[in-house]
C-alpha cells in the first residue's frame, strides 16, 4: 500500500542536508508551509538556497532561518516587504546572496524544471539589468532572453486536502506557487490541513497528482495569520 503520510515534521524533513536548494510555496501569508519552515530551523542547517517569492518578508519562519545563518542565498522576485526585514540587513552586510527573478519568469523556470524543459526564451526582462550578459535572440520581432530551468533538492508545499497517494487540492489563493514547486524538486514534502481517504477527491478536482509528492504531514493549523 502506498502511504505517503509521515507522523511528524521531523520525519517529513528527514534527510534535508546542508547546501540544499529548497523551494517554499506560498504567496504572502496564504498557502505557506509554516510548520515545515519552522521545522527547518530545528535542523541547524548551513548554506541553504531558498527559492520563495516573498523570501524577504518580515513574518513567518524565514527571518529566523536567516538570523540563524542557515541561508546562503535567496532566489525570489520580492526580497523585502514594507517593514524592515532581516533579509535587507544581512544583504547590506554582504552576508546573504540574492538572485532577483521576475515573478513570472520564476514561476516558469520552476515549471520548466518539472516539465523537462531545460531552457526557454521569453521577452520578460529582456534588455533590463536583470538579464545582463545573458543570451538573447530576436524572435518574431521581439527581443527575448534565454532562461534556464530552476531545480530544487526539496520543495515545501502547503495543501488543503491530501490523500495517502499524495493527491492534493489547495484552497483559493493558497494554490499560488505550490503546485509548480511540487513538480520541480527531488523531494516534495507537503503539510496538509485535511487528510482525506483515497478515492474521496474527485479525479477531475485533483490539482497536484500524488506522483509529484514524496511525504505528507497532517498540520490542521487553520487560517493564515494575517
Amino acid at each position, binding site marked *: 500500500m502506498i502511504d505517503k503520510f509521515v507522523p511528524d515534521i521531523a520525519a517529513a524533513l528527514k534527510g534535508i542536508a546542508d547546501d540544499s536548494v529548497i523551494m517554499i510555496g506560498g*504567496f*504572502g*501569508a*496564504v498557502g505557506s508551509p509554516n510548520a515545515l519552515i519552522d521545522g527547518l530551523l530545528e535542523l541547524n542547517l548551513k548554506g541553504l538556497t531558498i527559492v520563495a*517569492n516573498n523570501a*524577504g518578508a518580515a513574518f513567518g519562519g524565514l527571518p529566523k532561518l536567516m538570523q540563524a545563518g542557515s541561508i546562503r542565498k535567496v532566489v525570489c*522576485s*520580492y*526580497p*523585502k516587504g514594507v517593514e524592515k526585514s532581516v*533579509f*535587507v540587513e544581512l*544583504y*547590506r552586510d554582504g552576508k546573504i546572496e*540574492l538572485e*532577483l*527573478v*521576475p*515573478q*513570472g*519568469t520564476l*514561476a*516558469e523556470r*520552476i*515549471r520548466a524544471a518539472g516539465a523537462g524543459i531545460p531552457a526557454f526564451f*521569453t*521577452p*520578460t*526582462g*529582456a*534588455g*533590463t*539589468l*536583470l538579464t545582463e550578459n545573458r543570451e538573447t535572440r530576436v524572435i518574431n520581432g521581439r*527581443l527575448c532572453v534565454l532562461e534556464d530551468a530552476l531545480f530544487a533538492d526539496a520543495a515545501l508545499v502547503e495543501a488543503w486536502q491530501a490523500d495517502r497517494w499524495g493527491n492534493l487540492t*489547495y*484552497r*483559493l*489563493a*493558497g*494554490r*499560488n*506557487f*505550490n*503546485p*509548480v514547486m511540487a513538480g520541480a524538486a527531488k523531494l516534495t514534502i507537503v503539510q496538509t490541513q485535511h487528510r482525506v481517504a483515497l478515492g474521496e477527491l474527485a479525479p477531475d478536482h485533483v*490539482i497536484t497528482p500524488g506522483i509529484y509528492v514524496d511525504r505528507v504531514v497532517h498540520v490542521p493549523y487553520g*487560517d*493564515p495569520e*494575517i
Partner: protein
Amino acid sequence: MSAAIPLKTLSRDAMAARIASDIPEGWVVNLGIGAPTLVANHVPATREVIFHSENGVLGVGPAPAPHHTNPWLINAGKQHITLRDGASIIGHADSFAIIRGGHLDLAVLGGYEVAQNGDLANWSTGPDDIAPGVGGAMDLGAGAKRVWILMDHVSKSGASKLVEKCSYPLTALGSVTRVYTNIAVIDITARGFVLCEAAPGLSFEDIQNHTEAKLHLP
C-alpha cells in the same frame, strides 16, 4: 520646463476614475500594487471587467467589508479581496502564462519614469536602491496587450517623469501606450508623447512646461 508653477492637479482617486472610464466591459485587466488598485473602485458593478491578480485570481470583486474577510483570498498586494460570480483560481505558472501570453487586455501600473518611446522604469531607482523588488512588473510590462501608467506628472523633487530616455533601470522596453498623470492624459505613438487631454484649466503649454520630452498635438 518649470516645476515651480503650482498647478491644479487631480487627486489619485480622480486619476483612477479617469482610467476606469476608458476600460470597456469584457476587458481582462491587471491593476498594479498601490494607486492602480484604486481603479477597480471606479468601475461600476454593472460593467463587467475581469480583474486579474498575479497570485492566480481571475474575477476579483470589490474589497470585503470589515470583519468579513476571507483569509484565503488576497491579491498581489497582499490585501484581502472578494471574488465575483464567474471567478476562477489558477496557480502561478498559469497566472503568468496569461500575462506573458498576451491575454491581458490591459495592465495599469505605477511608474518612476516613462520615456517617449514607451520604455518604462518602475522597479528600481538605481544602485542606491538596496535589493529592490521586481515582483511581476517586468512580466506585466512585457506581456500585457496594453500598458497604461498611472503616476504623478512630476516627482516630489519637481523633475518630469515623462522623459526622453529613462535614467532609472528599465522594467520593459517600448511597451507603454498611455500615461495618466495628475495633470494630463498622454498617448505614446510613433511620434512620441501626444497630449490627449489636459486637466481642467490647463493648457498645452502648461503640460509641456512640466514635461521634459517634447509633447505633440494630437
